[in-house]
């Protein structure tokens, strides 16, 4: 099912947008990923991922409030688009694969 393909980073962004329900915009998504996953996220990478997800229809965005620390620039708040199925599909395929692994394979000890 090619149409529900999500990249690894895209998947993380999608999940984080869900975590930050209603509060997901550039900086907050970046911080959330950085604090939860302990990995650096550049503004550029994040913004391209967001645009790509919007183009695919998985995410939508609306203009949020403009605060003092943003010098009056509006927030671009992301929320789920119509195709949430993409995430469910990704999770289901992962779960299926996990279940398909025989227990022995996970128990292998390298000595």
């Amino acid at each position, binding site marked *: 099912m090619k149409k529900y393909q999500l990249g690894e980073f895209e998947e993380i962004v999608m999940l984080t947008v869900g975590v930050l329900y209603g509060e997901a*915009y550039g*900086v907050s998504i970046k911080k959330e990923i950085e604090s939860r996953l302990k990995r650096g996220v550049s503004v550029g990478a994040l*913004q391209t991922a967001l*645009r790509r997800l919007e183009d695919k229809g998985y995410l939508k965005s609306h203009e949020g409030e403009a*605060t003092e620390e*943003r010098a009056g*620039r509006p927030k671009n708040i992301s929320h789920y688009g119509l195709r949430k199925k993409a995430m469910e599909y990704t999770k289901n395929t992962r779960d299926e694969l996990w279940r398909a692994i025989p227990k022995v394979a996970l128990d292998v000890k390298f000595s």
Partner: protein
Amino acid sequence: MKMKHTPQLPLRFFRWFCHPKLRDSIEGDLMELYEERKAKSGKLKADLKFIFDVLLLFRPGIIKPTEGYQTLNTYGMYKNYFKISLRNLIKNKTFAFINVSSLAVGLAACVVIYLFVSDERSFDTFHSKSKNIYRLDEVQKFTGTNEQKVALSMPGMAPAMKRDFPEVKSYVRFWLRGKQLITKDDTKQLIENVMVADSTFLMCLIFH
């Protein structure tokens, strides 16, 4: 709007290459981050990270398209017009039927009227004086009968009209006599369609 003291050159660079739809919101993100970093680890580090972020933002998804980001034609508008009108037609079927059918009837009537008028006006225009040639018709009314319009007139009318109306320059009368036996010297000949006309015939009706 208060401007933050971010490095101006990278900011200007960013504003130049960024897609206008994303520009303000990303710029806000950058400034928010810049202020935080400045408070946390000093101006120099914040400046460097700001420059680094701007450079990392310089990538296809963010850069504005070279051919322009605004659509330069109005096809979308017309597409929308057609879509809306179709939806309205489908929604109000009765009124759509009334409107469309009456428009069709009206247009058909127009075409018929045009054809009729142009046919009437094209009638016998090959005469060079066709604009000034009139046919005298008659409205007959006798006691005991209904009024009737006939496309013929009485022989005495033409000279009388020429006498009474100065506008009438000349007249021609026709008289269809049908099959006639013509005698000339010794020969007799039966001619199918005989028409009697005034001597002014060729003067009035100049054929070209």
